[in-house]
Each structure stands twice: as C-alpha cells, then as structure tokens.
C-alpha cells in the first residue's frame, strides 16, 4: 500500500513553525497492522481449507481439489439454504423499511411526550438477539401458554404452533422487531435534516400533503434508504443467533440460512473443508453487496 511516510499540515498560516512534520506511520501502524492480519490470515486459511478434504473426525487433511465445492453445489439442501437466506434478508428488509418510513413520518411531527414514545420505539434495538428470540419463542409464540395463543383463542381461532407451521415467518417477525428501530432512527434522522423551508415552499405552491411527500420528502430520503438497504443486507445475511435459540435451522432445513448451514456442517458435522467452501461462498455474496455499499458511501466521504 502506498502511503506517505510524512505529511505536512495544510494550513493557511505562513508561519514555518506551524508546519510541523510528524511521522504518520507509527500512529497508523497499530490499527492498520492488526486489521490487516485480521483481514488476511483467516481468509487465506479459509481458501486453503476449502481445497482440503478434511474432517476433524478423520484427520489428516488431504488435498481434495474442488471436491468441497462440488459437494457444496450438489448438496440437495443448498438451493433451499440460498432461498432461505434470501427470504431472511428481503423479508425483514421490506417490513423494516416500510414500518421505518411510517414510524419516522409519525415521530417527525411534535406531540406531547414524543421523546418518551420515540425511546419506547427504539427499545428493541438494545435487546440482544438471543434474548429477543427466546422471549418471543416462549412468551409469545408458544402454542399453549404464549400470549398470541391466548389472543387467538380469545377471538375464536385455533392457536398457531408458530415454529412448526410457520417457522420462517416467526423468525422474520423477530428479526423485523429487532431492526425496525434502526430503520426508524436512520429515516427519522434523515427527515429531520430536511429543509423545512422546502416543505413550506411546496405548501405555499398549493401542493397537497401526499404530493409533498412524494415530490419533496421521498427524493430526500433516497440516499438514506439506499444506505439502509445496504446495511440491512449485510446484517441480515449473517442472521444466526435468532435461529440458534429457536429452530436450530429446522424443521428439516426450513430455516437454515448460509451462516447456519456453515455452522451445522463445521461445528456439528466436523467437515472443515465443506464448511470452508461454504464460507468462501458467503464471503463472495457479502463482497458483492459491500462493493455497492462502499461505492455508494464513498461519494459522501
């Protein structure tokens, strides 16, 4: 990497003394070097293992060529797993963006106790995923003693056994509940940075509130929404704890996504080679997303 070893401060002052030269590298090196190690070493090892025929229960590792990738891409579960991953990314994304937009519009205007109500909305974001999933699973989704079962019986419906009949929907609800506060906060922050005079001007011109929203507010939100979509893709691609404490990927492979697939192959099946090949696959997908994200972000740095 090419970086300058020394640099001078750019300032308008003419005084030569203020052009202090400092050595930049000693200050940068600690974090840059540990991050470089963190970024490169495990990745190289993952690539290496992905070409090895290596099961922890049957060592040693032998070179296996593309055998892991062959196995991965002919695994009957893989299409299901990829599909599940997509559903787990786009389901919560759709819900959180729509609710986030609605909630942000709601909390953009003043009303008595707004800051407390806003704090309440944000609350789920601070709940750790394992807690959220277990509380939902037991206190709400439980088919006998859950609050939802009680509510369903109250209106004369048969209680739903969420995790056996709608496991995916249940997980989507949990993830969406956890992340709606985040989208709300981002979009609210964006709304509040909107120039009030612009809205006033549109109102003066006789624009109705709906057309004000479509022609003034929405274009302003384009960038924050783009940022939100990218970040959520990256976060939702690695949904893990919510599955771990509820369905363990089941029933069957109904709620197994790529992270959970790798987990079950590696730590439960001891197949290092296959899990590494799947890891490479996951990294590739994330990199495609990150590429778009970084490109989008770099425009505003």
């Amino acid at each position: 990497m090419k970086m300058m070893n020394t640099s001078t401060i750019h300032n308008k002052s003419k005084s030569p003394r203020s052009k202090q030269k400092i050595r930049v590298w000693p200050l940068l090196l600690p974090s840059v070097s540990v991050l470089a190690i963190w970024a490169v070493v495990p990745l190289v090892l993952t690539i290496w293992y992905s070409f090895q025929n290596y099961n922890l229960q049957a060592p040693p590792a032998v070179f296996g060529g593309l055998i892991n990738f062959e196995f991965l891409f002919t695994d009957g579960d893989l299409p299901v797993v990829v599909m599940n991953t997509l559903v787990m990314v786009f389901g919560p994304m759709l819900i959180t963006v729509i609710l986030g937009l609605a909630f942000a519009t709601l909390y953009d205007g003043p009303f008595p106790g707004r800051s407390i109500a806003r704090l309440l909305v944000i609350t789920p974001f601070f709940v750790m995923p394992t807690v959220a999933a277990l509380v939902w699973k037991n206190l709400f989704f439980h088919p006998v003693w859950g609050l939802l079962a009680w509510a369903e019986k109250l209106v004369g419906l048969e209680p739903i056994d969420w995790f056996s009949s709608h496991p995916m929907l249940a997980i989507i609800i949990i993830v969406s509940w956890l992340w709606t506060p985040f989208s709300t906060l981002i979009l609210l922050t964006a709304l509040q940075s909107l120039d009030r005079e612009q809205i006033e001007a549109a109102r003066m011109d006789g624009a109705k509130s709906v057309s004000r929203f479509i022609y003034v507010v929405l274009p302003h939100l384009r960038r924050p929404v783009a940022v939100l979509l990218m970040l959520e893709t990256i976060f939702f691609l690695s949904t893990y704890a919510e599955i771990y404490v509820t369905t363990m990927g089941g029933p069957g492979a109904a709620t197994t996504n790529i992270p959970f697939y790798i987990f079950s192959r590696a730590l439960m099946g001891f197949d290092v080679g296959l899990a590494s090949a799947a890891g490479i696959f996951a990294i590739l997908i994330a990199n495609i997303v990150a590429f778009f994200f970084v490109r989008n972000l770099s425009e505003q740095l």
Partner: protein
Amino acid sequence: MSRAKSEKIDLLRMILGWFVGILMAFPVFWMALAAFKTEQDAASIPPKLFFSPTLENFVAMNERVDYVRHAWNSIVVSASSTLIAIALAAPAAYVMAFYATKSTRKLMLWMLSIRFMPAVGVLIPIYLILVHFNLIDTKFALIVITCLSNLPIIVWMLYSYFKEVPVEILEAARMDGARPLRQLRYLLIPLTAPGFASTALLGVILAWNEAFWCINITATEAGTLALAIASFANSEGQFWAKLSAASLASVGPIFIFGWITQRQLVRGLTFGAVK
C-alpha cells in the same frame, strides 16, 4: 390549513405515536413483568397483568445459568475490548483527521470493508487456530476477536469527532511543540470527551450483544450473557420466569447505555452516511 384540522392531526399523531411506542416496547415490558412472577403465574392462561411479585427468579436463575460469572465475563469482555480498540484507533483517527492525504479515504474504506466480511466465512480457521493454541473458551480470545471486529467502527467514529475540532486549536499546540500523542492526551481527548464517551458506549453495546463468536468459541468458562441466555433454548420444564429474570438482568444495563447514546448509535452504525 385550518386550525381545527391541524389540532386534529396533532391529536391523531399523539395517539398513534404512543400506540406504536407501547406496542414496540411491549415484549420487553411483558418480559420484565414475567421476571417477577412465579412460574405458575408466568404460564397462566389467561395471562396475569396483576400478581404478587417475587424476587426468587433472580436467585434461581443464578443457580441455573451461573448468571454472576457470565455477567462478569460480559463486563470484562465488552469493557476491555472497547478500551483496547479505542487505544488502537485514536492515533490512527488523529492522523486521518488532521494529516489527511489522498490515500486516507481508501484506507478508511478498506477498514470498513473488513467490518463487512461475514464472520461465518472465517469461523473455521479462527476456531482451528484457537484450538491449536488452547484458547477456546477463554476471555482473551473473545476480547481479541470482539476488539478487532469493532475496531473499524471505532476508528470511524473517532475520526468523525476529530474532524469537528477546529484546526486552529491544534495549531496553537503545535506551535508550542506538542507532539501528536501529547496533543491527543491534553487537547483532543478533553475537547472530544463526549465523542469518546459515545464511541465507547457504542463499542460496549456491540460487544455486549454479540452472540455469534460467543456461542461458537466459548462455553461455561468464558461465555458471556448472550451464551447464558442461549442455554435456555434447550431447557426442559418450567423456566419462563427464570428466563425472563435472566433476560431482564442481561439487557437492563444496555438499555441505560442505549437510551443515552441512541443518536450516536445511528451515526456509528451508518458510518456518518446519515447525519
């Protein structure tokens, strides 16, 4: 717009605003309530809103999941990983903010791209390395990993706080011959104390709630609260009240942190893309 109509909108906004807020927070409220119920009350149909509260769950949960040990692990891991990350990040953020060159932007983007690498992609080698060095289920390993994965965000946040410091103030210090580390210590840290504080809080929150690495590389010895809670997943028998008590005791501290730092949190997680 007529005044009456505008008042009507405000009333509607208030009702909806409170309704949504209460609805979103309800699961947490319900969990907090269950933490003080007996197991019978927690599983009663119809659900009980009024009951005689008990504290016995908090005693029982400690016997069941060794709460105190896991809480201590959570505190140690989140505090030390954040402190180390800030110590590493501050000098780098200083250089990036005040001695920016053409490659600064690239360096920053490179750091962020590391944050985007899915942990699951590197789980295998890291697991095997930890096994090799006998570091599975140690706080040390968890601290190092948490620190590294939060480092890019912490560099970024400190950088954006430093950028807000007027260069003239540093100039004066430079004239007096203060070296970078002295400038950091005596000028930047005091000047951006609120920034440092919210960066630290964000780091602590992220580390506290982290579940992936905790579940995969730790067990009873070094596991944090995320793992203690996860162990309820396979529980048999009546445990809801105890689960709720353990949950409340695990998320409680973070709520306080989170409520204080909600704004900065967005900034930290969006890397300033949303002001």
